[in-house]
């Protein structure tokens, strides 16, 4: 069941929401939590009931480990339990997500005749595994309090964030679950939640799905090996994918934030206009923010971060980004994508060391140039992310460099109209968080660059007035009426 499906919007969401507030008013928060966990498990099982067992087992095992960690005073024992917990989580992830990849590569490298049946990746395993590893690490440090089992279940399964994030942290969720007033119906929560959900749905249905029509055919043909895209097709497809993935994933995140808020829960923001970034460092503070935070706190810092000198810092960055790429998918293209971003970050830090300037102190023309340059490098990296193998990615890049002779032109000029429109939205318009900033749409994440809207855009601030209500009603209706072809969110595969 997807957020952009009739079944979700017309049946699941209204029933779950009504049940939630009715139970909350009648029986109190405990029953409310049970209802929400049950609804979330139903939501997960809708995709494939067989994999529900994996999610439930993961919750039980990790809660057990968390309990053991927080109740053990012996630090050696604690360390052992933590290692065992992390190993078990990673083993499950390795089996379901990476086993086929490893076996395939061993076959190629060593010529061994190993066969492994195709393992279907359980939905969201990367997300709920990371979330729980973070929980175990903090439990070992004594940073988790004695959480109730139902709160923990809700922390992992809460359906708005279960499938594709944001990757939530127990410290920001558990206190909200514990508060009684979370379960009380408030019109401001419902109104802001509905607005965020509608904006996200619009991004997904009206923009991402429309623009996908210009990237998918070219990448698919390039994948087949019989087609070498010329510059026109290669650029239009790469740019179309750049915007498809942004509007798809940020649309999903806005919808998740909105859904959370409908239930009185503030989720952390995951996007903050990443294509406005003036450097790759800034890009990673704005793109998939909760993943960056996880990788920083639970991988980069434990590796030593920047505490062990500049050379080690660059190595740590590279390792973090390579693993971040690998987290996205079991394929060399994802590793290359991560490696490219690692390299970009290393170069960016080196540049900063030389120039000694930060992005927010730049004059606007310089910043504009930096935004374009950053955007260019991001587009190049998306080619690897999108292509299913290295060869088609290189074919696409050659096309972008004008090195291919186009025998056939796939895309029409309209691709560029869409791209220009998407570019204007991404560069010139405020994001959903900025528009609704006065009503605290998300859980606060410590950020140095959470810029307010420029003065000329302030008229776009969301207000619960007739103009906004009419606009949102029209947008919501338009989206619901355009749902007949349900398409999956790109990040579901990770």
């Amino acid at each position, binding site marked *: 069941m997807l957020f952009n499906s009739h079944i979700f919007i017309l049946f699941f969401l209204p029933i779950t929401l009504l049940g939630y507030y009715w139970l909350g008013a009648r029986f109190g928060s405990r029953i409310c939590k049970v209802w929400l966990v049950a609804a979330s498990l139903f939501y997960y099982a809708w995709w494939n009931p067989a994999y529900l067992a994996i999610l439930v087992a993961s919750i039980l095992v990790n809660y057990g480990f968390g309990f053991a960690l927080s109740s053990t005073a012996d630090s050696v024992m604690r360390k052992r339990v933590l290692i065992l917990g992390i190993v078990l989580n990673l083993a499950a992830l390795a089996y379901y997500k990476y086993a086929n990849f490893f076996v395939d590569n061993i076959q190629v490298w060593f010529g061994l005749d190993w066969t492994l049946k195709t393992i279907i990746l359980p939905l969201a395993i990367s997300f709920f595994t990371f979330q729980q590893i973070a929980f175990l690490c903090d439990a070992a440090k004594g940073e988790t309090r004695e959480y109730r089992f139902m709160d923990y279940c809700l922390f992992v399964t809460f359906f708005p964030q279960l499938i594709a994030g944001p990757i939530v942290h127990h410290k920001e969720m558990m206190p909200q679950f514990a508060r009684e007033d979370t379960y009380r119906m408030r019109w401001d929560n419902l109104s802001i939640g*509905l607005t965020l959900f509608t904006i996200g749905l619009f991004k997904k249905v009206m923009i991402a799905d429309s623009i996908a029509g210009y990237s998918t055919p070219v990448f698919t043909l390039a994948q087949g090996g019989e087609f070498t895209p010329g510059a026109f097709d290669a650029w239009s497809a790469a740019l179309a994918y750049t915007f498809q993935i942004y509007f798809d994933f940020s649309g999903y995140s806005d919808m998740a934030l909105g859904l959370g808020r409908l239930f009185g829960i503030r989720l952390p923001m995951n996007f903050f206009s990443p294509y406005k970034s003036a450097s790759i460092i800034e890009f990673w503070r704005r793109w998939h923010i909760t993943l960056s935070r996880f990788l920083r706190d639970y991988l980069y810092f434990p590796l030593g971060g920047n505490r062990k000198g500049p050379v080690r810092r660059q190595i740590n960055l590279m390792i973090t980004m390579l693993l971040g790429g690998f987290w996205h998918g079991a394929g060399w293209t994802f590793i290359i994508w991560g490696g490219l971003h690692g390299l970009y970050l290393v170069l960016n830090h080196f540049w900063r060391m030389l120039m000694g300037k930060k992005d927010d102190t730049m004059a606007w023309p310089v910043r504009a140039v930096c935004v374009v340059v950053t955007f260019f490098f991001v587009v190049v990296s998306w080619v690897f992310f999108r292509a299913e193998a290295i060869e088609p990615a290189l074919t696409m890049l050659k096309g972008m460099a004008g090195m291919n002779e186009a025998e056939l032109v796939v895309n029409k000029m309209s691709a560029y109209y869409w791209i220009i429109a998407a570019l204007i939205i991404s560069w010139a318009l405020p994001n959903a968080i900025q528009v609704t900033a006065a009503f605290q749409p998300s859980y606060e994440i410590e950020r140095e660059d959470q810029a307010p809207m420029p003065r000329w855009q302030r008229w776009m601030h969301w207000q*619960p*007035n007739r103009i*906004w*209500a009419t606009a949102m009603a*029209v947008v*919501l*209706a338009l989206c*619901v009426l355009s749902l007949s072809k349900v398409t999956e969110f790109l990040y579901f595969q990770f």
Partner: protein
Amino acid sequence: MRGYFFSVIGGALAVVLAKAVFIATVDPIGRLGWNHGGIYFALEREQKESAVKWRGHDAVFFTNSKLSMQDPAELDAYRWFNFAAGGMRIEEMAGFVEAYVRDQSACVLGLDVWMMHAGHPPVTEVAHPRPWFAWLPSYLTSWRSFFRTTGTLQRRWAGVSPVITSGGFLDATLFAERLARKNIGGDAEWDFWFEQNLMSNFVYCEKRLTMLKQIRDTLKQRGVKLVVFLHPQHEQALQFLERPEFAAHQKRFLKDLRGIFPVVVDLTKEYPDDRFYFTNDRLHYFPWVSTEFLNARVIPLLEQTSHDARAMEGGE
């Protein structure tokens, strides 16, 4: 805030409901069972899936476009439902049999060797039976339904004949008119067509045999009599089928079918002449041909089959 929330929900619902009511009133592809003016726009399989629920019948036949124009009222022995649809694949047949052949007494499957071609494009989403909550909102809110509704009204008012008649089959005259527009005429053109569309890179798909077994088992379990026939082929198609590289596939297909089903009627060589086929079309025989062979050669065999275990022993 309360006013805002209800305005957004109420406004959006009003627009969505208005469109849904408009589509539901006309019911352009008969999905809701109250379209009596004929179907003007529909993928056949979409319409069949709807009509099978509303049209009284006790027997059903599945095959591709070759029987799309067969009027079920002209067939003997049972009240038939025509479940033939252009390009129907074995995967679809298995899905439809599973979902819709439950209480009927008899079923006929029309097959040909090209249905075993592994290179067929993947089955489209409409080919799988879906529960009401999956198709109903989509039917009532999609732009496709909306434009079909406005188009239906336009054509009805203009007095145009429906594409699918009230008997649930394609209008043969309209079909012939469309064929004439296709303009594939002479032997050379048809040679090229057969070569390109049916013969090139043919790969025999083993997996579909499992689906055929699944159909057999499902029908056996439900007590539905079953006869399978192989479509008659035009003499030009037969020349291709008799080529050494292809004859082996045809022979194997027949052998496999006889290994799976108790009763298989091979009509491949029975109606080869031009006179049995539409002008400009060497794939589709006239509806009177199918009426003839179904009544004379296929349906009587249903009487000879029974769904006890003994009759099925001839199977695998």
